[in-house]
C-alpha cells in the first residue's frame, strides 16, 4: 500500500456531512414576544419595578382620560345646566355642547357673520400657499415663493380688512378673533421673519462695521428680552413714536412686535446655516465674477437655507406657540376667546375650563406636531441627499 493509497483510504473513511443541518429555531427564551418582554420590560429587578410603576400610572391615567373625554362627557344640551353635576346627578366629564355652540366664535371671533366667507377664503389661500411650498414635488416652486411671500399676503390683507372700492365691506380688526387671529399672527410672523432674518444674518456677517454693529445690537437686544416685553414695547411705545394720526391699531402693533421677535431668532438660525457653507463656495462664486447679490442669491443662500431648513421649521413651531402671548396685550386670539367663553355665565361650570383648554391643546398639538414631523421628514430627505 503506497502513501497515496493510504491517504485515499483515509479520505474515504472520514465522514464528512454533505449538507448542513437546518438551523434550529432559537430557544423561545431568546426571541418572540416573551423574550421581547424579558429584554425590554423585565430584565432586572430595577426594570421590573419601573415597569410596574409605569403600568400603574397608565392604568390610572388612561381610564381617567377616557372617562373624562368620552364616557362621562356631555354630548348635547343648550346651556350650563346640561353640564352641572348638581342638575344632572351624575359624574360629569367634558362639556362638548359648549364647544359646539362656541365653535364659530373660536374660529372667527366677532367677525361679522355675513362676511365670514372671506375668512374661509383666506384659510384656503393660505393652505394653497403652504402646500405649494412644503410639498417637494410641487410644480413651479419658484412661483410658489412669489405667491407665498407677496401675492398671498397682499390679497389676504385686502380680503380680511376689506376694500370698499371693490365691494368688500371694511371690517375693523377689533372684531377679528379666535383661530383667524392666531393664524394671521403666525403667518405674519412666518412671512416676515424669513426675509428680515436673512437680511439681519447677512448684516451680522458683513465686512462693514456699521452694518455688523447695528445687526448685532438688534439681534442680541431682541433675543435678550422676553416676548412679553417686546409686545408691551410695541403696544405702548410704538404709538408714541409715530405721529398721532398714523397711530397703528392694536393688532398691527402686536404684529410688529411678533415680526421683530421672530426675525431676530430667524437671523441666528440663518447665520448658523451660512456658517455651514464652506469658504470655497464663496470663493468659487467670486472667482467666476459674481457680485455680492448674485453670489448670495444663486450660490450661498440656496445651500444655507436647505441645510438649516429643519431649524427654520423648529423656529416656526416656537413662533406658532408664542402667538398665544398676544393674549396678554389684549388681542382675541384662540386662547383669549376660550378664556372669554369659559367664564361666560351661560356655560360656566366646573368642567368648562378644562374642556376649553383641551380643545386649545388639541389645536396647538396638531399644528406643532405636524410641523415637527415635517421637519423630521425633511431632515431625513436631506440626509439621503448627503449620502454618496
Amino acid at each position: 500500500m503506497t502513501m497515496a493509497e493510504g491517504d485515499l483510504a483515509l479520505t474515504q473513511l472520514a465522514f464528512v456531512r454533505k449538507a448542513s443541518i437546518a438551523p434550529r429555531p432559537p430557544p423561545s427564551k431568546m426571541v418572540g414576544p416573551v423574550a421581547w418582554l424579558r429584554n425590554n420590560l423585565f430584565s432586572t429587578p430595577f426594570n421590573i419595578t419601573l415597569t410596574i410603576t409605569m403600568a400603574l400610572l397608565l392604568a390610572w391615567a388612561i381610564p381617567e382620560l377616557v372617562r373624562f373625554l368620552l364616557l362621562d362627557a356631555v354630548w348635547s344640551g343648550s346651556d350650563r345646566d346640561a353640564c352641572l353635576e348638581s342638575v344632572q346627578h351624575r359624574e360629569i366629564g367634558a362639556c362638548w355642547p359648549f364647544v359646539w355652540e362656541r365653535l364659530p366664535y373660536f374660529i372667527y371671533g366677532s367677525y361679522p357673520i355675513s362676511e365670514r366667507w372671506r375668512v374661509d377664503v383666506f384659510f384656503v389661500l393660505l393652505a394653497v400657499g403652504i402646500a405649494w411650498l412644503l410639498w417637494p414635488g410641487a410644480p413651479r416652486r419658484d412661483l410658489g415663493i412669489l405667491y407665498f411671500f407677496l401675492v398671498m399676503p397682499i390679497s389676504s390683507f385686502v380680503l380680511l380688512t376689506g376694500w370698499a372700492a371693490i365691494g368688500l365691506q371694511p371690517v375693523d380688526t377689533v372684531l377679528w378673533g379666535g383661530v383667524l387671529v392666531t393664524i394671521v399672527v403666525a403667518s405674519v410672523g412666518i412671512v416676515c421673519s424669513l426675509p428680515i432674518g436673512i437680511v439681519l444674518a447677512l448684516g451680522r456677517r458683513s465686512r462693514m462695521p456699521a452694518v455688523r454693529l447695528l445687526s448685532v445690537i438688534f439681534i442680541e437686544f431682541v433675543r435678550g428680552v422676553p416676548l412679553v416685553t417686546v409686545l408691551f414695547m410695541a403696544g405702548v411705545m410704538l404709538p408714541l413714536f409715530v405721529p398721532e394720526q398714523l397711530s397703528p391699531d392694536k393688532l398691527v402693533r402686536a404684529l410688529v412686535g411678533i415680526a421683530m421677535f421672530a426675525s431676530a431668532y430667524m437671523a441666528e438660525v440663518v447665520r448658523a446655516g451660512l456658517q455651514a457653507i464652506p469658504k470655497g463656495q464663496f470663493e468659487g462664486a467670486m472667482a467666476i465674477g459674481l457680485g455680492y447679490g448674485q453670489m448670495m442669491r444663486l450660490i450661498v443662500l440656496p445651500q444655507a437655507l436647505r441645510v438649516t431648513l429643519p431649524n427654520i421649521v423648529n423656529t416656526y413651531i416656537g413662533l406658532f406657540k408664542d402667538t398665544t402671548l398676544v393674549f396678554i396685550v389684549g388681542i382675541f386670539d384662540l386662547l383669549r376667546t376660550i378664556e372669554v367663553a369659559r367664564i361666560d355665565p351661560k356655560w360656566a361650570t366646573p368642567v368648562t375650563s378644562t374642556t376649553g383648554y383641551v380643545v386649545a391643546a388639541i389645536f396647538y398639538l396638531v399644528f406643532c406636531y405636524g410641523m415637527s414631523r415635517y421637519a423630521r421628514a425633511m431632515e431625513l430627505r436631506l440626509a439621503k441627499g448627503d449620502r454618496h
Partner: protein
Amino acid sequence: MSGELSANSRPARVAYYNDPKVRSIAYQALLCAIVAFLIYGAATNAIENLARARIASGFGFWNATAGFDISQTLIEYSPRASTYGRAFWVGLLNTLLVSAIGIVLATILGFIVGISRLSRNWLLARIAGGYVEIIRNTPLLLQLLFWYNAVLKALPGLRDSLVVPGGLYLNNRGLYLPKPLLETGSGLVGLGFTVGILGAIALYLWARRRQERTGQQTPVFWLSVGLVIVAPLLIFAAAGFPIAFEYPQAGRFNITGGIEILPEFAALLFGLSIYTAAFIAEVVRAGILAVSHGQTEAAFSLGLRPGPTLRLIVVPQAMRVIIPPLTSQYLNLTKNSSLAVAIGYPDLVQVFTGTVLNQTGQAVEVVAITMLVYLVISLFTSLLMNIYNSRMALVER
C-alpha cells in the same frame, strides 16, 4: 522703458463709484443716516405725544409713593409708605425666586425624563417620549392657564380646605405650611453646616491630590455626607432641638400664620418647570447620544465598572455638549417667567410693566427699565457661558 513698466504695474484705475472701499463707506453712511433719522423722528414724535397727553418724563416717579398692594413680597413693602422703586425690587425678587426654584425643579425633572427616554425599558422610554412631545407642542401660556384655572382654582374653598395632618392646609387660596421658628442655638447648627461644606470641599481636593500621588482612594462621598449632614444633625440634637413651628390657624374668613404659598406662584412654578423640563430632557438626550459608544466600550475594556464608566467617561463628555444649551434653557425659563402677568403672579413684568406703567403712564421709562433688567440677566449669563466654554472646549493639537 522703466517708466513704461512702472506705468503698467500700477493698478488699473477704477471709477471712484466702483471702488469697493468708497462704496462700503457710502452704504454705511447711508444706513447710519437712516437709523439716525428714524431715531430722531421717533424721539420728536414721542416728546410731542407725551406733552400732549401731559405725561411726565424722567425717572422722578421712582421715589413716588406706590399706593398699591402686592400679594407676595420677599422684602418689607407697604402700599402707603413704599415707593415705585421698592415695588420694582419686590417684583424683581419675585421673578428671581420663581426662576431659581423653577430652574432647580426643571433640571431634576428634565434629567430624569431625558435619561428615561434612553432607557432600555420600553414602557418608560415611550412614556417619557409622550411627555416630551405633548409638553413641547403646546404653548406655555395654555399650560399655565390650565394649572391655574383648571387645577388650582378648582380646589375646594376655604371652608372645605384639604387638611393634611401635621398642619398643612390646601385650598383654592393657596397652600399653607407650618413655619419653622429658629430659637437660640440654631446659629450653631448653621455654623456647623457651613464648616461641613467647606470641610467637604477641602476633603475632595485633598483626596484627589492623594490619589494622583499615591493611587489610593478615599471614600469622599460618605465622608462628605458625614460632614455636611450628620455633623450638623448631631449639633442640632446636642443643642436640644432649638426649633419650633408656627402652625397655620384656620379662621372663618382666612387662614393666619404659617407659610402661605400662593396658587399663582404654584401654577407658575409647575408650568415653567414642567415645560422647561421637556426641553432639558431633549438637551440631555442629545448630549448623552453625542458620546460615541466606543468611549463606553473602551472604558469597559480598560476594566472600569459601569458606575465609574458613567461618572468618569460618559458624563464629563456629555456635559460638554449639554451645558451650553442647558444654560439657554435656564435663560428661557427666566424670560418665560414674565408670563406670570397672565395669571396674576406679582413678578417684575406684572408689577412694573403692568401696575406701575398703568399708574404713571411713563411707558418709555418703565418698559426700558424692564428690558434692561432682562438684558443684564441674559448678557451676564452669556458671559459666564463664554468663560465656561473656553475652559471646557476640547483642547486639540
